[in-house]
């Protein structure tokens, strides 16, 4: 246990980085995911194709491979950013594919009559998506998106492999000095569980408040 308490500052810094990664990546993923969803249900064939290709590509690659390619590959084509920023962007783009997939199933769950009614009122594609379809779709996907948030939190730990000193990297470094894996990693795991538990609590509340009973 003392291994944990002696290195509290390191753990705290790691936790802060993990939280930054989680929040920034999720915000980015939500925005990109919405755009991709809009593209995938749009009347323009090419946009649907791009959206589908995006989701297929990012869902079918391990995050770690993407991180390594972005960190070491992008500087080769002249795009070099801070490690933390690179990791945030990669995780955001990666999780956006999952959010887009969840949102699309939400959009599909909205009955066709809703869209027809919106058009009958004279709403454009953008308007009917924004005012009619998405609000209903979002409610049905609170639980899946909450799960994506939790998965995203767990996935931020992979940033440690490309040099970001997050909670996992901090735990790893402390373990290297103290060689006591059990208290150190259980401690780090509890911190992750705590973040996820908060997310679970929030989605639970949201779902109870907003869910559409059919």
């Amino acid at each position, binding site marked *: 246990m003392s291994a944990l308490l002696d290195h509290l500052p390191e753990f705290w810094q790691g936790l802060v980085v993990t939280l930054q990664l989680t929040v920034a990546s999720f915000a980015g993923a939500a925005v990109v995911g919405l755009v991709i969803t809009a593209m995938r249900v749009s009347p*323009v064939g090419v946009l649907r194709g791009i959206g589908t290709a995006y989701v297929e590509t990012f869902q079918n*690659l391990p*995050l*770690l*491979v993407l991180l390594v390619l972005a960190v070491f590959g992008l500087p080769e084509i002249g795009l070099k950013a801070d490690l933390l920023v690179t990791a945030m962007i990669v995780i955001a783009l990666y999780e956006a594919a999952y959010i887009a997939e969840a949102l699309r199933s939400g959009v599909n769950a909205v009955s066709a009559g809703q869209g027809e009614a919106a058009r009958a009122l004279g709403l454009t594609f953008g308007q009917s*998506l924004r005012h009619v379809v998405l609000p209903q779709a979002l409610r049905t996907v609170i639980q899946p998106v909450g799960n994506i948030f939790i998965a995203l939190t767990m996935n931020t730990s992979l940033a440690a492999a490309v040099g970001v000193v997050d909670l996992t990297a901090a735990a790893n470094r402390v373990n290297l000095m103290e060689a006591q894996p059990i208290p150190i*990693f259980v401690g780090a795991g509890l911190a*992750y569980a705590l973040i996820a538990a908060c997310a679970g609590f929030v989605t639970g509340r949201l779902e109870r408040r907003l869910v559409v009973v059919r």
Partner: protein
Amino acid sequence: MSNLLFDQPGPRARRRIRIATAVGAVAVLALLALAVRQFAAGGQLDADRWSPYATWPMWRYLLNGLWATALAAVVSAALAMAAGLALALGRLSRRGWVRVPAAAYVEVVRTIPALLLVYVVLFALPRYGLDLPLFWKLVVPLAISNAAAFAEIFRAGVLSVERGQGEAGLAVGLTQGQTMRLIVLPQAARRVLPSIVSQSVGLLKDTSLGFVVSYAELLYSGKVLATYNGLLIQTYIVVALIYLVVNASLSKLARTLDSRGTPGARRLRRRPARA
């Protein structure tokens, strides 16, 4: 295609669609061309940096890794799905002594990183005399953690079926179990299929944790290769392509099987699968 959000386009809409199509296509092509040009300028496309991957030993090595990945993924998925279905039904049960433990398992396990479970199996269990073989040190934590994820998917599917369906089943005299089995589950299964496929693909990707338990799967094999030949970017691009091809084929296969397997649902499935 989806007719949820737009009707048959008229002349003006068709023109706008054509413009958007052209702009989108040009943007994508320009982006690709730029990326290739920049990579070439950095010397990353030189023939000698890629020629090792035209040789059989490199591929044999990577394919061995892929086989190990597939084996671990299939076994973990089978265990996790069986456990997940049981947990989902348990969580929806009317009996508290079934519902509470199932819910507790799902809620606790899904908030713990798979990596942590791997560490528990790796370090903690041997101290209590349970020392699993290498393969199971990867599979057991993945199955434990994915069981919770599958349980949530199944449960969401069951809950997404309109209440009236279950009520109607009960009204015609079916028991709770029969209603679930004959009416709710078949509809739920169809709806959650895309999620099941992406979760399985996710599980396949999770097997990359194998490098922590020293299980030589695809990603780890790639890492060993990169240290051997020093071609970091090329190696990871090849590994990425293998993952992409394998996982995309799996998703495609699942979609094909799905639209064939349930003839009545063909029309219904078309839209969600390709919207």
